[in-house]
């Protein structure tokens, strides 16, 4: 089953990204320890699946995370819910 935008949103949030702007898409930003922008990612509204694996891997690269980390974070989150 492909990951969804909702799951991607959950994982980036748990990795310290914050929603900074919501227009046609959502702009999320990760800050460093000094509150400076370190990375950003753009998330589509809603919870549609991210079907294209190549695109999904580019998204993970944008956040400097691996697919393994992505599913680990989701699993931990599901256990604690």
């Amino acid at each position, binding site marked *: 089953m492909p990951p969804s935008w909702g799951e991607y949103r959950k994982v980036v949030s748990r990795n310290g990204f914050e929603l*900074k*702007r919501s*227009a*046609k*898409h959502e*702009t999320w*930003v990760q*800050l*460093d320890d*000094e*509150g*400076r*922008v*370190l*990375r*950003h*990612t*753009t998330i589509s509204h809603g919870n549609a699946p991210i*079907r*294209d*694996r*190549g*695109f999904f891997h*580019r*998204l993970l690269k*944008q956040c400097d995370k691996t697919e393994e980390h992505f599913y680990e974070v989701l699993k931990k989150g599901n256990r604690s819910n």
Partner: protein
Amino acid sequence: MTPVAIAGGPAAPSSTGELISTYGQNMRYVSYPPHGSVYRIPVTPRLTAYVEPTDDGFVATCPQLESLGYGADAVGAFLQLLEATQEYLTYLSDQQPLLSPRVAHHKAYVRLLEVPVTSWFAAIGRPSPDAS
């Protein structure tokens, strides 16, 4: 605007210029023999887009800003890249957040919001095989 200084003048030959580029300060200079004049011309840096096919569609990336777009075809991917880039630059312009050294150069592209989006990308192509 990013300032550019060009040294020249009535006596300056056109073929002996030396380009000196200092990206960190977004300044570009062309220096000619010492007796030339110096002209400062503002230049806003442009972006590059790489578009490539993936499993079910196309991905468009912008290495300068690390933006991303996806679409069923190359045009759709590029248009989404444009939207993501526009929204990120608008965030930088509106909220003027502090930028870490890793992305400090992003600030130079905020000026693109003042020009038509159709001129933002100077080049669109496929990434080289060596690109990660």
